[in-house]
């Protein structure tokens, strides 16, 4: 009976449908006015992946101990934290320094805004089969992000150097999309303004379960120059509508206040391979 029914269904579905002429021409104008989604995660280019060596892992661990924190300690051997921001590669910071006569909001103050990034230089992929370790990683991408914030003290250009490590399985088996990757990412974000700047550390995770919010990271900043003695802590949501050829536009919300930023976590011992 089941086979008869399957046959009946099969034959019924294969009957001519008699549909009118397809309106294919309608599609092109719709496509022309539709922006493609371009994820913030860099595409996997398998040809460029090299197996990470034990030596590199050891070096990574040593460098990360100076940079990382407990947030990253649990993911196993970690690639090197990005080195100093290559000032020569990034265009000069263009943060508007508050003029002497400008009236600034009293501290503490909540701040919010958006930013728009361009990739200055790509990072590099590596892959490891070490047990228990996040199997793939991308290290050292440099981005220049122009941030428009509600407070001029945190508006301007940040140079981000970030890396990520993640897993690339399970969900992707079904979903087959790049954003299904689960990653942690971390880096430095520097507003290199000689008058008033910021030195920040950041870490976050991707959010592959929500199509409109691909990731969230936390930034913890210490003021430099005229900003010395100030702390700036913010979270940045990476949003779907930000995607375009040019880069990302993400929502930022945070607090600017006098004092020290919260500790990002003590350096943790890194397991060696």
């Amino acid at each position, binding site marked *: 009976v089941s086979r008869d029914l*399957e046959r009946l*269904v099969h034959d019924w579905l294969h009957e001519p449908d008699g549909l009118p002429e*397809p309106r294919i021409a309608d599609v*092109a104008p719709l496509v022309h006015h539709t922006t493609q*989604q371009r*994820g913030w995660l860099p595409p996997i280019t398998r040809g460029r992946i090299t197996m990470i060596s034990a030596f590199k892992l050891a070096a990574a661990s040593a460098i990360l101990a100076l940079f990382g924190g407990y947030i990253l300690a649990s993911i196993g051997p970690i690639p090197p934290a990005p080195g100093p921001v290559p000032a020569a590669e990034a265009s000069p910071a263009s943060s508007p320094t508050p003029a002497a006569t400008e009236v600034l909001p009293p501290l503490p103050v909540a701040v919010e805004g958006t930013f728009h990034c361009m990739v200055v230089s790509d990072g590099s992929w590596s892959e490891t089969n070490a047990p228990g370790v996040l199997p793939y990683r991308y290290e050292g991408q440099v981005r220049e992000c122009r941030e428009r914030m509600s407070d001029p003290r945190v508006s301007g250009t940040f140079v981000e150097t970030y890396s990520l490590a993640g897993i690339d399985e399970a969900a992707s088996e079904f979903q*087959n*999309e*790049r954003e299904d990757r689960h990653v942690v990412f971390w880096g430095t974000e520097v507003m290199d303004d000689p008058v008033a700047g910021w030195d920040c550390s950041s870490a976050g995770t991707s959010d592959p379960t929500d199509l409109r919010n691909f990731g969230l990271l936390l930034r913890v900043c210490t003021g430099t120059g005229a900003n010395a003695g100030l702390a700036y802590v913010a979270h940045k949501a990476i949003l779907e509508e930000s995607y375009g050829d040019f880069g990302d536009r993400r929502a930022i919300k945070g607090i600017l206040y006098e004092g020290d930023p919260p500790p990002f976590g003590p350096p943790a011992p890194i397991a060696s391979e």
Partner: protein
Amino acid sequence: MDTQLVIRAQRGDEAAFAAISEATYVRLRAVAYRILRDPGLAEDATQIALVGIWRKLPRLRDPGRFEAWSYRILVNACADEARRRSRSVTAIRLDGEPAAGPVAPDRMGAIDDRDLLERAFSCLSVEQRAVVVLRHYLDLTLEDVATALGVPVGTVNSRLSRAMSKLRAAMGPEGAVQPAPPLEAAP
């Protein structure tokens, strides 16, 4: 599908995507029609799906899996169309003329298997219809249906089993086809 075309379209090449649309439109619409059983809804769902495919194309990891991936977007578009139009479709059905077929209730005595099937099929959710169509129209394996819909094989199995059980019940000796519920995607 030519993977080079897909790669070019992923990079924003509208001409490449036009070629993809040309090559896939009729097939996608045929699938949409068999899920929705309404030519107008199928046309709309196809166009919405193609725009969605264009929009999400840069996120497709493996261009070689374009076809299966495109079916998932199409099925989602069908579900959206079904939800959007459920009220009007219900109204049509209350008038005694199902969107899916030409059989009026007062002619039930004369209907054949095909008409019974048409009415029975209209009792399935969009998700169940999609599984039936991908399996028995496109002749995909259960694994390929799972990949296309982005669900585990076990889910495909249970959806297909439930769908066929419903069809079997509706096709029983009493011809116990119930009035079609609103065409709606499962929650």
